[in-house]
């Protein structure tokens, strides 16, 4: 695959990674932690490195459950698919195994190194890895079959370094404050993808629902760790975030209607929406928004990762049963997957 046929700003290739315009850092791991594992990566291989250095993320990276939404795209061998914000490549690897020609883009080089090692370990040669700012990269017009944007859109308004552990729910004033409206930045990002798509090409977009039923029970927003902010009008959420965290609220989430409007305004025509349970990261059930919730069985597990049965989980499961099986309130589904066509 000639990468220049798809991406316009490629600057150079170093050590099997293509480099585009430099971006910031986004990872669940601190920069220091990331540096530590890199030296052992070629010796241990990807799986053992993760098991040794950050076993808590093993499933995030390797669980085949992560790719449960991708067959909605019906990926075909040879299709050019760009995984935008691929991070450790949980979805990239699935697409590569399905025989697609994959371009995996992320701004964090350390994450891409782990992905590269994983590709070597699994003998997958149909992936090109690109390190670049997701907002500054451009695609050749009508060149790509599919874009995958999995849990990325809400982070688009962010800039600079995001070490998740250091900023999740913590008071850190960001120096590079967001100057534009978050939804404008998100629209620009989507429009850029729209231009790169071939006619009939598809966008796979996965994001939390702004009106996830759990949020009404005080479950914190998964991006800023503040309760109720995603439900509130943006201005009020912004004031709360500035007071509690010292920074604006910019990780905007959307409702089903909101995401449809955002995609339409970005140019997409046919938009299919799906409800995702219990979330888009590890989906158990994905049901078309136009479909029925009849006979819905709860998907929230009673037992957590540590083998405990917290009371909160029981309540959440009960809530899930009542809201979706009995009341059938689709609008409160936890996550949204949108398949939008050009």
């Amino acid at each position, binding site marked *: 695959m000639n990468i220049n046929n798809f991406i316009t700003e490629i600057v150079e290739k170093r050590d099997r990674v293509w480099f585009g315009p430099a971006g910031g850092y986004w990872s669940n791991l601190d920069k220091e932690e990331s540096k530590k594992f890199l030296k052992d990566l070629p010796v241990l291989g990807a799986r053992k490195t993760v098991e040794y250095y950050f076993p808590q993320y093993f499933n995030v990276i390797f*669980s085949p459950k992560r790719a*449960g939404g991708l*067959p909605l795209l019906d990926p075909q061998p040879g299709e050019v698919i760009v995984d935008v914000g691929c991070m450790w490549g949980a979805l990239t690897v699935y697409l590569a195994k399905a025989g697609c020609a994959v371009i995996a883009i992320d701004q964090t080089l350390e994450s891409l190194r782990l992905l590269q090692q994983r590709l070597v370990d699994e003998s997958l040669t149909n992936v090109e890895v690109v390190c670049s700012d997701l907002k500054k990269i451009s695609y050749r017009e009508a060149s790509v079959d599919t874009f995958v944007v999995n849990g990325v859109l809400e982070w688009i308004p962010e800039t600079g370094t995001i070490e998740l552990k250091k900023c999740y729910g913590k008071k850190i004033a960001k120096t590079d404050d967001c100057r534009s409206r978050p939804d404008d930045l998100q629209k620009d990002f989507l429009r850029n993808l729209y231009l790169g798509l071939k006619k009939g090409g598809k966008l796979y977009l996965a994001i939390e629902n702004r009106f996830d039923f759990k949020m009404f029970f005080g479950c914190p927003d998964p991006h800023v760790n503040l309760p109720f902010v995603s439900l509130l009008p943006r201005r009020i959420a912004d004031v709360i975030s500035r007071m509690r965290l010292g920074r604006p609220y910019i990780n905007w989430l959307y409702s089903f209607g909101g995401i449809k409007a955002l995609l339409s305004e970005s140019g997409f025509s046919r938009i299919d929406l799906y409800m995702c349970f219990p979330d888009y990261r590890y989906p158990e059930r994905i049901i078309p928004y136009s479909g029925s919730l009849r006979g819905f069985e709860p998907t929230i597990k009673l037992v957590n990762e540590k083998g405990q049965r917290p009371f909160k989980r029981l309540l959440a499961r009960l809530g899930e049963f009542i809201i979706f099986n009995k009341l059938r309130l689709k609008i409160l589904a936890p996550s949204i997957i949108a398949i939008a066509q050009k």
Partner: protein
Amino acid sequence: MIELIRNCSHDSEIATYLIVDCGSKQIIKVASSIIGIDGLQRELQGWQWYQKARYPEQKDHICKIIQKNPSYLKIGIKFINGVKADYRTGLILNRNLLRKVMSHYCDIWPYYSNGCSVLHGDLSLDNIICNKEGIHIIDWEYFNPNGALWGFDAVYLLFEVLYFGMKRRKLPSLLEFDIIAENIAILNKQKLLAVDFIRSPLKTVKDFIITNYKCWGDYLLIAPKKLPILSFTDNQIFLIDQAISSRMRGML
């Protein structure tokens, strides 16, 4: 319209989808890991065998490969319309259905000269569809062509239904013992059932699973609770087997 209906349940590493297209339905199963692909290959083999035995008149393959790479497998299975019993409802409510399943087992399952037969490996109420054409068995992810003593899957089914029906009780009721005994008696009419299934059925089933882990591939290593009857304690097994075998003696 496509819908994800099951994703890697019991660590199977297989995702199952339902596609509805102009009223016609199809089940799609996808795997991209070694364990998942192994399961789908068994599913293909299982359906091949079952189709020959159950639907000999049907020419089109019920289960076929849609896409295959060394590290990716996608198969399509014809959707069977019908009703599934709730696996949590126990033996008493499913008494008639179980009788039908036992007869179906006797009609379909072959008997090889070494006393073995094919293994479904996960014959539970959740994998049985009932409609006006009779009983249909689905989900062949643990299929093994020469993997088990004749009668294993059927006896396994009885104890799995018992397990879920018992909930928090330590022992079954007298009626439940009777139902198990009458169903084992149906199987025994064929004169093919190994004598151990009559003397100590639950112990025989559990011992078979423990000594033949490999029949289930790597599944039982990563998901030991997949087969719920492994959760019966030795004491429960002893008491249940004693009660059933004494009833069996009366029937023989």
